[in-house]
């Protein structure tokens, strides 16, 4: 293990998160068994009281996990100097077998956290807590994810040794390899951009339908997720080339480096935010209807659709800017 402050911070964060997750999951089982808002018994009252604590704690944990994703990635980039052959975060994640699983789990936790926070806000807005059962069922689903994330992170950091030889991004993101990264790299730039544009159009249409006609929220969620995948592919396949002004450098992590003006953050933050918001819109539509939320949900859906569209538009603007300001000419 490398004794390093951000690592200590991340481990502290995930240890607290795991403790809260375990406890909240135990409590969630009690809620799912015995929750009845119409019942005035002492047991129900105690349960209602405890939900205040669990919701607050779990909400804080979710916020922390969102910040932890940023810290995890940024710090991996920073630590690349400690490994032989690493140029950017890819080398750090590749330094042992747990790096990329930990990152994937962190991203999964990020989206789960964003959705759960939305659910929590909506639940608190209704005076009779109409979504409590859904919320606690979701905690039961998220808790294992949090524990797995903490375990992968711990395994990753404990096995992290300096001076090991790791692979640089140029070895991972080449069309010559097998695997998903290589597939993404190998996709023709033109096709990747078309795919992105089509998904973008789908998002715009679905978003428009939600705003104007109040329909298509689930479609927007699906389009948002498709856009997310298309955007990641396009970043690896073509957008990174424009940012680096280099026809063969496909790395999606070098974008986060200072050398490229931290441009990756201008891409990833709107993209992740937009996807989380769009998925949240779909989730709000899919929730069980209730009287107390009848007036609130449609408003929230519209507000979040607007925000999601704005985030995706920001991402699009960043992409266009990268292409327009690049010296590289891929087409024509």
């Amino acid at each position, binding site marked *: 293990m*490398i*004794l390093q402050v951000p690592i200590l911070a991340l481990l502290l964060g995930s240890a607290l998160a795991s403790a809260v997750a375990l406890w909240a999951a135990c409590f969630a089982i009690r809620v799912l068994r015995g929750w009845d808002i119409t019942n005035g018994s002492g047991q129900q009252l105690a349960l209602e009281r405890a939900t205040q604590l669990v919701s607050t704690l779990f909400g804080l944990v979710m916020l922390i996990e969102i910040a932890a994703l940023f810290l995890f990635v940024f710090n991996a980039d920073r630590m690349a100097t400690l490994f032989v052959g690493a140029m950017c975060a890819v080398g750090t994640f590749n330094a042992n077998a747990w790096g990329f699983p930990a990152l994937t789990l962190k991203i999964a936790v990020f989206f789960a956290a964003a959705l759960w926070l939305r659910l929590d806000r909506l639940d608190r807005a209704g005076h009779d807590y109409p979504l409590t059962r859904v919320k606690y069922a979701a905690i039961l689903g998220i808790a294992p994810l949090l524990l797995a994330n903490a375990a992968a992170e711990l395994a990753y950091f404990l096995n992290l*040794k*300096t*001076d*090991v030889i790791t692979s640089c991004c140029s070895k991972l993101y080449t069309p010559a390899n097998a695997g998903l990264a290589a597939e993404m790299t190998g996709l023709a730039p033109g096709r990747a951009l078309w795919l992105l544009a089509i998904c973008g159009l789908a998002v715009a249409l679905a978003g428009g339908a939600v705003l104007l006609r109040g329909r298509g929220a689930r479609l927007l969620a699906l389009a948002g997720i498709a856009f997310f995948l298309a955007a990641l592919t396009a970043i690896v396949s073509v957008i990174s080339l424009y940012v680096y002004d280099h026809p063969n450098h496909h790395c999606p992590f070098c974008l986060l480096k200072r050398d490229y003006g931290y441009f990756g953050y201008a891409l990833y933050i709107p993209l992740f935010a937009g996807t989380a918001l769009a998925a949240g819109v779909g989730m709000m539509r899919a929730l069980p209807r209730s009287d107390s939320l009848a007036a609130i949900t449609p408003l929230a859906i519209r507000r979040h659709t607007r925000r999601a569209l704005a985030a995706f538009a920001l991402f699009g603007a960043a992409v266009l800017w990268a292409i327009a300001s690049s010296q590289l000419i891929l087409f024509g």
Partner: protein
Amino acid sequence: MTRRSPLVFGLIGAGCALLALEAMHSKLMTPAGAARMARSAELVRRAGLTDLALFTEARFARNPALADLHTAFQDSPLSFEHFPSGTFAPRPAAGFGQGTLRFGTEEDAR
């Protein structure tokens, strides 16, 4: 009741301003600092230096990146952790040794 909040928010604002000023200060200092470090780097290149002059208390602490003639234990068998610098240098992460025995030239060439 609301009279308090301007004061406290003012203090918080002052804290934010302090931090913002410092961030700005560090931004402003960056070019000068980079130029200074470039001059130091020039000295390192021309003189052929390998180490920082931070630990000058003992000869064996001066060049942590290199082995040298004046290693630990030279003064007395107990002098290994004689100096406080020892607390700052970590144990080699990979342990001592390379972990493998190497035979043959092909392996070395790799």
